[in-house]
């Protein structure tokens, strides 16, 4: 028996971005506790924005200095590898622009505890109080998003999942207008989210029973030597997949997404549609590729079916929507399906896997920014009672406000994957990776991968129909006499829309630099 206790080592330099975000979140909580009310917003905004920018700078510094660790850090709890750093960078950029949106006036309730329509609520509105707790909550959620895809064992991943989700459950219920919808979204998200994370946890328990450990290295080692058709392993895999696919919003676990996206305050919807999706895809990839890589004969058909189903369900149900946020939610479901095509596209060689990984990383960046841009436009089209989310209210927007409608149309074209937008190269990269993976496998499996790409292209065509329908509605319909007003955008919102627009156009015309960056990040694949 070895009785000496070895002190754990923590690589503070490598973990600095994560520690900075969590540290700033805790400082934010302390500000809420001790700073006077009138000072809070003035302190929270710089703390939040500077910490996100600082964390991004630290990520860039780590990439530029070239000391990307080749072994897991923090005693094997986290894997800060190329894909992790790329995903961190994407999440930090997306959350920075989302915080700029959150920062705008009038999105959040003055007092969440006041019953809607009561005298308390009126009083809170009149006194101009605001929930500045939103900023530390958002920071905790962002910290969870960073932790979730970088986790190197299932326990850390579960903790990351909860740290990401718990603040988001609360943030969903804090909309200033239509508070009943917002509270309802919050409750639905919470109950279903807690339900799905229980599945994730039971899956973890089953895998632990099979492998005797929850670290991805240990799991894949146990699979290399042990039986692959062990019931514990298969049960564990299925339950883990339920938990992860729920967070991603893949069919048949997509039901929460439209409700929550519609009810939540729009800046939070933007954060969920971009940051959470990126983190969930990263975590899903890590579990399936790094943890359960040896089981790919079992999980690839399952994910194949789910990818096809998700693309079809997302695209078809989007057609019937009359609410702009709901429509964007279904579009987000369809995009989750396109990303899953990349997850299925594994290969027997590391180079082949790196191509699929590069495609997914690239897709995450371009889709995330276009989404935030689209939701930023949604915040600007307003009725007296809040945002004008019903599609009929958007009729003729192109005649009243050509620039705004033009920008929105451009984001929709990027979602549809029209050439000269970033979305085209995203889809192109994912589909090519899938075809290459099928070609390599040959014969029947190759045909299956081609089939999945065909489903993807058909789904894209269906999706293009409803995107174009909105564009036609905006530009070729007469505006209603009492149409919605276009809010004068704040500097923050202008910055968000400009950044999103710039990247969508820029990457659509010159994709090489970003593709190269994704290629470099993907080259080393996951470490475990």
């Amino acid at each position: 028996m070895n009785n000496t206790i070895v002190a754990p080592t923590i690589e503070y330099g490598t973990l600095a971005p994560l520690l900075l975000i969590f540290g700033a979140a805790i400082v934010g909580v302390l500000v809420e506790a001790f700073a006077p009310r009138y000072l809070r917003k003035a302190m929270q905004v710089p703390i939040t924005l500077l910490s996100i920018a600082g964390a991004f700078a630290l990520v860039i510094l780590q990439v530029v200095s070239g000391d990307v660790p080749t072994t897991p850090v923090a005693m094997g709890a986290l894997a800060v590898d190329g894909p992790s750093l790329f995903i961190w960078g994407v999440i930090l950029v997306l959350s920075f622009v989302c915080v700029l949106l959150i920062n705008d006036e009038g999105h959040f309730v003055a007092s969440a505890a006041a019953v809607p329509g009561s005298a308390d609520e009126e009083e809170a509105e009149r006194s101009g109080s605001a929930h500045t707790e939103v900023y530390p909550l958002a920071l905790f959620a962002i910290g969870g998003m960073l932790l979730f895809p970088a986790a190197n064992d299932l326990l850390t991943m579960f903790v990351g999942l909860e740290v990401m989700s718990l603040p988001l459950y609360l943030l969903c219920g804090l909309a200033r207008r239509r508070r009943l919808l917002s509270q309802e979204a919050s409750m639905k998200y919470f109950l279903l989210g807690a339900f799905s994370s229980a599945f994730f946890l039971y899956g973890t328990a089953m895998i632990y029973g099979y492998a005797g450990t929850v670290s991805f290295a240990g799991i894949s080692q146990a699979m290399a030597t042990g039986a692959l058709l062990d019931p514990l392993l298969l049960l564990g895999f299925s339950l883990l997949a339920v938990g992860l696919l729920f967070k991603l919003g893949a069919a048949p676990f997509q039901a929460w997404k439209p409700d929550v996206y519609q009810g939540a305050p729009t800046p939070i919807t933007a954060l969920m549609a971009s940051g959470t999706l990126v983190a969930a895809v990263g975590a899903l990839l890590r579990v399936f590729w790094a943890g359960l890589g040896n089981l790919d004969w079992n999980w690839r058909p399952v994910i194949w079916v789910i990818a096809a189903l998700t693309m079809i369900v997302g695209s078809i149900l989007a057609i019937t929507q009359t609410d702009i946020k709901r429509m964007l939610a279904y579009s987000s479901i369809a995009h989750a399906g396109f990303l899953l095509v990349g997850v299925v596209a594994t290969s027997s060689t590391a180079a082949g896997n790196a191509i699929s990984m590069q495609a997914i990383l690239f897709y995450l960046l371009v889709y995330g920014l276009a989404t935030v841009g689209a939701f930023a436009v949604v915040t600007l089209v307003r009725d007296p009672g809040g945002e004008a989310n019903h599609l009929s209210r958007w009729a003729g927007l192109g005649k009243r406000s050509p620039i705004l409608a033009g920008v929105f149309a451009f984001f929709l074209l990027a979602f549809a994957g029209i050439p000269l937008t970033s979305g085209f190269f995203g889809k192109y990269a994912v589909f090519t990776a899938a075809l290459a993976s099928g070609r390599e496998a040959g014969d029947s499996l190759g045909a299956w991968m081609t089939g999945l790409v065909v489903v993807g292209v058909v789904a894209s065509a269906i999706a293009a129909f409803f995107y174009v329908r909105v564009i036609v509605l905006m530009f070729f319909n007469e505006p209603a006499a009492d149409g919605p007003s276009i809010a004068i955008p704040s500097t923050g919102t202008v910055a968000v829309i400009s950044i999103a627009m710039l990247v969508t156009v820029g990457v659509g015309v010159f994709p090489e630099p970003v593709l190269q960056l994704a290629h470099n990040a993907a080259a080393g694949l996951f470490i475990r």
Partner: protein
Amino acid sequence: MTTHYLILSGLLFAIGAIGVLTRRNAIVVFMCVELMLNACNLAFVTFARQVGNLEGQIIAFFVMVVAAAEVVVGLAIIVTIFRTRRSASVDDVNLLKY
């Protein structure tokens, strides 16, 4: 013999899952989710005994902490809904659909 404990854990998880799907009161639904988490804990501890390391027992502590945090958030949300609607039934929250 650890099998009995695993069967018990599976039963608790199933009871919790069925409860979430069939019960109508949000508080009860939430308690069923907690039951599922506790079923996970039992499975972890049992497997720790079976495979002969302490990892599973340590995970159980983490799960307890997460479950406690979840209770805070969950009850806050359910109480807010109850104050607004005078009802905690999950059938009554039906404004968001289609």
